[in-house]
């Protein structure tokens, strides 16, 4: 396996608060990494740096062998590199339809009257339909506003958006927090399937059984530093919990 993502001593502060105090770890291609930590440990900030919403202050992040050029890095660049994130609140535009949400920021266009680029709705709807079908999800129509769908269906839309553009890394932020038991298994299967395809996954979750079920490795963040970096097979829930709460 080759290394996809390397973080070297990443730091970040918001005003007087030092949120990340030198975070280093690496992620192999096709590896599922469980990222754990209490609220405020710095998980979200770290992920938002990787996806280009925030810049970092010190340190370096290397993706696919190339340093990410902060502070120019932004969400568009991150997606172009193959970094996708499924947000806990899903980040969907609820009044827009399913197809619009899946292709948000990447709409296919054609030239109306030969010069005017317009969104190719037919192409988008066909591709959106296919993306939803690949996930095995059931949605009445890709022309429905996302806000009219159930929670599980909305999550399928968010997942489809992350997977449609050949990602190399998929970050899932609490993907199972709001789901029914059957749907949780679906999401975990999805993580395994991504791994089979050589896609790396960072799974952020408070539900330890989920993380232990699918991850290859577990990293625990505490107060802005990595306090544990262990192979899932060689650790235990008790051990991980101890790291999370700082009992070690």
């Amino acid at each position, binding site marked *: 396996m080759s290394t996809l993502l390397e973080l070297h001593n990443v730091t970040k502060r918001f005003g007087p608060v030092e949120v990340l105090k030198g975070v280093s770890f690496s992620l192999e291609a096709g590896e599922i990494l469980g990222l754990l930590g209490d609220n405020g440990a710095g998980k979200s900030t770290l992920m938002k740096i990787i996806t280009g919403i925030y810049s970092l202050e010190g340190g370096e992040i290397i993706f696919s062998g190339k340093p990410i050029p902060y502070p120019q890095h932004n*969400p568009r660049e991150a997606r172009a590199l193959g970094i996708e994130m499924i947000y806990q609140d899903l980040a969907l535009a609820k009044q827009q339809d399913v197809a619009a949400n899946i292709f948000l920021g990447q709409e296919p266009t054609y030239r109306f009257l030969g010069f005017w680029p317009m969104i190719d709705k037919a192409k988008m709807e066909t591709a959106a339909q296919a993306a939803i079908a690949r996930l095995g999800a059931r949605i009445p129509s890709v022309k429905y506003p996302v806000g009219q769908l159930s929670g599980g269906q909305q999550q399928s839309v968010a997942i489809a958006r992350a997977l449609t553009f050949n990602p190399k890394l998929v970050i899932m932020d609490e993907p199972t927090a709001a789901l029914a038991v059957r749907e949780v298994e679906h999401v975990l299967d999805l993580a395994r399937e991504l791994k089979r395809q050589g896609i790396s996954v960072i799974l952020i979750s408070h539900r330890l059984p989920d993380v232990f079920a699918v991850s290859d490795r577990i990293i625990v963040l505490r107060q802005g530093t990595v306090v544990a970096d262990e192979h899932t097979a060689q650790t235990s829930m008790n051990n991980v919990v101890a790291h999370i709460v700082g009992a070690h």
Partner: protein
Amino acid sequence: MQTPLTSRVFSGLNVRLESVLVLLGLALAMAIFAPDFLSLSNFLNILLATAVIGVLAIAATFVLCAAGLDLSLGSVLAVAGVVSGVLCVNLGLPWFLGLLGGLLAGGLLGAVNGLLIARAGIPAFIVTLGMLSVARGLALIISDGKPVYGLPPVITFLGQGRFLGVPMPVWIFLALVVVFHLILSRTRFGRYTLVIGDNEMAARVTGIDVPAHKIRLYVLSGTLAGLAGLLFAARVNAADPTAGVSYELSAITAAVIGGTNLFGGRGTVIGTLIGALIMGILQNGLNLMAVPSFYQQVAIGTILVLAVWLDRVRDRRRV
């Protein structure tokens, strides 16, 4: 869950059936009760009377769809008119420089709005409320408080001329409706406008440059207000610094009656056209019936509130 009738019938245009029905019902009522309502010349009158507010309403639609607000439309209209008047009449420059100057003035004031909202993070309500006052003051300063008369014939043709019997402002307004309807409903620019108003975070994380887009929106809004100012000045053959007072409120009213969500994420330009026509027909018909204008204001305000109330009832039924 089944597709609502309205979206099936009008899915091509994304127009709500309700607003079309209100428009037709209103037209029918006026045809019955208002003398001389039903004639081609009166129809063109309505469109002509709607054109200036209509152009502003297109601007309002875009800004509202992105969950923004532009209260400075009427004042920017006056600045643009006065700038082109001063350039053409007082400075004797050719007509096209007058037109260009008016549009640029509108776009520039829009850019100031956009920068303050998107970069400095000041709420749109405050920024454009400030601009409402600043731009009105600028219009008075530039014109020394007096209307500029005697605009060049090319410009007055745009306001008073006719092509195939239809007044030029009507041609210009309808052309803008078609172009901006396509922009809002079919292009990435329009899609991102709606998404920013729907969920700004969704726009950000999918790689849309939200601040840049907002700035472009306010530049567009200012430029359209500038164009409305030129049409207005051309029609009355005077660039009046007191023109367009409170027009922004009529423009917003037209957009909201036409189905634009005041909190962003939904709206169409064809819907706004219908909203503007509803207001125009109401005014025209009540005029023909010799109803005093005080009552017209009551009627328009009532329709606005009714439109939004209907919308809420609909949404509750749907979700």
